[in-house]
């Protein structure tokens, strides 16, 4: 690990002033569950690390007047998973958090870190670059792409977004507050086109500070298709939200594209429909439309259908949480 300077400022303004305006000059440290490993592996080698540990930002608060629940970016994932307000209003978030499966990750990993963690693509993690290009060709396309994207993979980025909370936050219409602006969750994630870009619209000297989720009474759920209950990333995730009468439906997929993937054609199946097993299956089938698997990840297409179907049934109260 390259040596670096360390600062733990006590105000957001100080923290921003300590950050460079180019990616890689400085890194933001929240829980560290991703960054520390990346530092050891030389995937990033900043001159300075800015810790957010003295900023607070770790409360979950309800504002009845505004009709929002605000989650501080430094809230541990475990606190989100076990919070009563979150469990009552946003089971899609509680489930996505608790599914992390590792008490160590739950106690240390943060909500903001979940949104800003780097992809788990093994080419990237082994130093072959975010876009894993060699001689103008994609190593992912020619190589072992079993965990890579089946949607949004037409460009150079073939990795999947690692965020557990992203799909649910988009489905719930959340907004992400940063040190300088407010960003709808649906516009927070971005697909990098070059090695010097990252996976969110955040600037190098911008800090995600909180997430606001509207209390809109939507039925919601997350279902992850997983290999094991313990620490691992899912193969495919679906987060859904809709009104009791099927209105205002949102279906968002995770771990299948370089960003959380909005499946609007699946949402259209739900809109205005009384949810049944048949409708849920149709919704799942619609969600997989347009999938473009690589050579070794065609299996994910079926998993998307299953994840969406089960998330819809769980949200509608027609199936117990799995």
């Amino acid at each position, binding site marked *: 690990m390259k040596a*670096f300077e360390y600062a733990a400022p*006590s105000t957001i303004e100080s923290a921003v002033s300590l950050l460079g305006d180019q990616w890689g000059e400085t890194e933001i440290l929240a829980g560290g569950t991703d960054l520390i490993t990346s530092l050891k592996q030389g995937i990033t080698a900043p001159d300075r690390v800015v810790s957010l540990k003295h900023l607070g930002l770790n409360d979950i608060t309800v504002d009845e007047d505004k009709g929002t629940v605000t989650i501080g970016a430094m809230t541990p994932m475990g606190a989100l998973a076990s919070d009563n307000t979150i469990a009552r209003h946003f089971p899609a978030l509680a489930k996505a958090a608790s599914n992390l499966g590792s008490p160590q990750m739950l106690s240390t990993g943060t909500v903001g870190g979940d949104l800003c963690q780097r992809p788990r693509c093994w080419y990237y993690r082994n130093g072959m670059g975010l876009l894993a290009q060699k001689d103008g060709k994609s190593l992912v396309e020619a190589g072992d792409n079993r965990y890579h994207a089946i949607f949004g993979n037409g460009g150079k980025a073939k990795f999947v977004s690692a965020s557990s909370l992203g799909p649910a936050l988009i489905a719930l219409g959340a907004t992400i507050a940063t040190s300088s602006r407010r960003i709808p969750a649906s516009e927070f994630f971005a697909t990098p086109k070059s090695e010097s870009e990252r996976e969110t619209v955040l600037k190098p000297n911008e800090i995600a500070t909180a997430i606001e989720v509207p209390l809109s009474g939507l039925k919601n759920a997350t279902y992850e298709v997983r290999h094991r209950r313990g620490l691992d990333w899912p193969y495919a995730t679906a987060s859904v939200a809709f009104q009791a009468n099927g209105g205002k439906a949102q279906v968002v997929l995770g771990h299948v594209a370089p960003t959380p993937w909005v499946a609007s054609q699946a949402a259209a199946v739900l809109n205005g429909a009384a949810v049944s097993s048949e409708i849920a299956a149709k919704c799942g089938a619609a969600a997989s439309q347009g999938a473009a698997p690589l050579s070794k990840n065609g299996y994910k297409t079926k998993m998307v259908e299953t994840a969406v179907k089960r998330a819809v049934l769980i949200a509608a109260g027609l199936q117990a949480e799995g």
Partner: protein
Amino acid sequence: MSEEPTSSQVSDSGLSRRGFLKGFGVSGAATGLIAEAHAQEAESAPKVHGPGEIPVTLSINGKNHRINLEPRVTLLDALRNRLDLTGSKKVCDRGTCGACTVLVDGDPAYACSMLAIEAEGREITTIEGLGTPDQMNAVQEAFVENDAQQCGFCTPGFVVACTAVLNQNPDATLEEAQGGCGGNLCRCGTYAGMNQALLDAAKSMKMKGGA
């Protein structure tokens, strides 16, 4: 690469791109405790520490240790290489196997994925703080009774994780207790013995009212 740096690495600490840092009161080594910097920050520019060694105070197993560390040193390396607390094991060193598990303010955490400097002000409990060969805690005793290990490398991490989950939920079902070990791996596959140890430890803790 992830061991503590050698002196040659320290002197080669790559500060060539520090032009943008000017004007932020970049400090040299030994500028004082983070806590002091924290208090002074209101009046002046925020303090920056390192990349050389700075004094860090760690509270481990109820005892304060003041050591000089570079900011890049992980809690696990500080425990093992500087404080001779080698019970916490370094296996994957990337937050996936759980062999380095310690308690931070009572919650299980991967010591390999936390900077030592970030642990300042927190209460760290390592496997050494849970019990001794003569006075084992309930989980340690149950692991011995049930031969719940083979090579033993994952064992300290499992014992800490099991202790945490049973401390937090003494009435945990086996499934819940297993969930508490979801961040630990045993490559020898001694899970059957550990399951039995979990059940026995839970029973004994309930009788004694704690680990």
